[in-house]
């Protein structure tokens, strides 16, 4: 018997000669003749160009979300102009980390969604808000993972719900979803979440935090990530969506090419390890 994993259980060639697929008019003859690969069909096994963390937080009357502009090829900083925050509709931001080609695919389907839902046959009023966008993305992500062909991303959807309360929810390549007042993906879930939770210990506490406080912690988090996440960059984008309580209108602020400020590198000379031979 052949013990090769791809031919397991078949008669071994050494003993019986090459298997003749034409025996009994086997239907898979053509397939075997054309496709000489030793592997069965394969989908994405790993991301190629990647984006690192997205970090986000609610505050009293809005949300803030940030992501840097780096696209890494392994440990190489291959691109530094990747925009990973996508605006959907007038009051929703989708932040994406993970595979950049999958990010671009998601960007495309979100554009299509916007055209379909907000332009075609729209009589006004029926606009996509953050919970709708999140539900849609979670269906896409879960469908892809169920086909064993996931979109290799972690996604944060930020905006407002139908009651004009801040909305922040996560979905990833497995179709897992959860909501929280502070969410970070990738390395950020280790480095930024402690800082964010320091500001907002429990989900309900976001109402005690104002925009300046949230923004400061996001800036601090981006700095810490730039210090310690070797796939991160110095330049990042951040978006603030806030409800103006006087006018009742939702304000949208999208800032690009923001730099990590107040960098102090004195601690760096003391860093040891990371495979270095110096001690």
């Amino acid at each position, binding site marked *: 018997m052949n013990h090769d994993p791809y031919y397991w259980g078949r008669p071994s060639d050494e003993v019986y000669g090459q298997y003749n697929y034409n025996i009994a008019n086997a239907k898979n003859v053509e397939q075997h003749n054309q496709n000489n690969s030793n592997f069965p069909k394969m989908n994405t096994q790993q991301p190629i160009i990647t984006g690192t963390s997205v970090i986000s937080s609610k505050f009293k009357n809005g949300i803030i979300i940030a992501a840097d502009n780096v696209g890494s090829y392994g440990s190489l900083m291959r691109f530094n102009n990747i925009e990973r925050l996508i605006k959907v509709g007038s009051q929703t931001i989708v932040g994406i980390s993970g595979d950049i080609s999958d990010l671009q695919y998601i960007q495309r389907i979100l554009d299509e969604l916007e055209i379909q839902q907000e332009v075609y046959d729209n009589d*006004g*009023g029926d606009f996509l808000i953050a919970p709708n966008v999140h539900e849609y993305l979670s*269906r896409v992500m879960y469908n892809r993972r169920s086909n064993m062909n996931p979109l290799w991303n972690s996604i944060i959807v930020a905006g407002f719900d139908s009651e004009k309360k801040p909305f922040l929810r996560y979905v990833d390549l497995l179709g897992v979803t959860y909501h929280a007042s502070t969410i970070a993906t990738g390395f950020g879930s280790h480095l930024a979440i402690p800082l964010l939770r320091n500001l907002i210990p429990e989900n309900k506490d976001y109402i005690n935090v104002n925009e300046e406080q949230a923004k400061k912690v996001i800036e601090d988090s981006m700095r810490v990530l730039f210090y310690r996440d070797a796939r991160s960059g110095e330049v990042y984008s951040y978006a603030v969506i806030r409800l103006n309580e006087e006018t009742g209108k939702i304000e949208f602020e999208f800032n690009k090419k923001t730099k990590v400020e107040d960098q102090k590198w004195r601690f760096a000379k003391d860093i040891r390890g990371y495979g270095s031979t110096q001690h």
Partner: protein
Amino acid sequence: MFRNNYDNDTVTYSPTGRLFQVEYALEAIKQGSAAVGLTSKNHVVLVALKRNAEELGSYQKKIIKIDSHMGVALAGLAPDARVLSNYLKKKAMENKLIFDKQIQTYKAVLSIADKAQENTQGFGSRPYGVGLLIAGYDETGSHLFEFQPSGSVLEYFGAAIGARSQAARTYLERNLEIIQQETEVEKLIVHGLNALRDTLSQDVELTFKNTTVAVVGKDQEFITYDDEDVQQWLDKLDSVSNARNREEETEENTEENTHETNNEDNQDHPTNEDRMETDE
């Protein structure tokens, strides 16, 4: 035998630019019993007259719930309406599943309009033989649409379709301003039943068996009242037969008994015209 050479299919225009098969489909709506819809700022009401094929048979279903915020009333071929309402139900569920959101009435209506339009442009197909009144309440408020087999949809404050529906439209037109200002659902339903009452033929009255009522609106999920549940609304009416008949009745009552027997004869033998319209 044929009215003309241009009504065999929907791919051929008549020289005057008409599509006769589509026009015949619109006629099919008028064969069905009446359905009336009316809106106020926060509510939409549908009322309809149900027929029973024979004395021992059940009454037809005239109002179909689509979702918790939307429903339709039909006039014409009931099987076609079932197909269309199942499609609407599917669309409504899809929208909930994919977007976690109830489908907007306008979009739901356009989805069946597109479906119906396709049937007016193919050789082997027949246009739907049913008209629908679609009532919905969504984030853009209360809406009432009329759907036609031609694929056209129009929004109305008040609309009526089916047999003798002109009488109901006349009532709605005359009372439009009062109806629009109405804040209480109860009164809106009474206006609906008044309009429906005007469509009745001579020998028919509104009863809890042949009347169906549905409401949807702000903080009010789509609800249908049938059979015993309708009686509460009929009790609010001053009369369950239409005005024309009431005038005749009072005239006849003041006259001698011989006329009453005549009246009974009339009931046993409704005019040919009536019979055509009441048979489905």
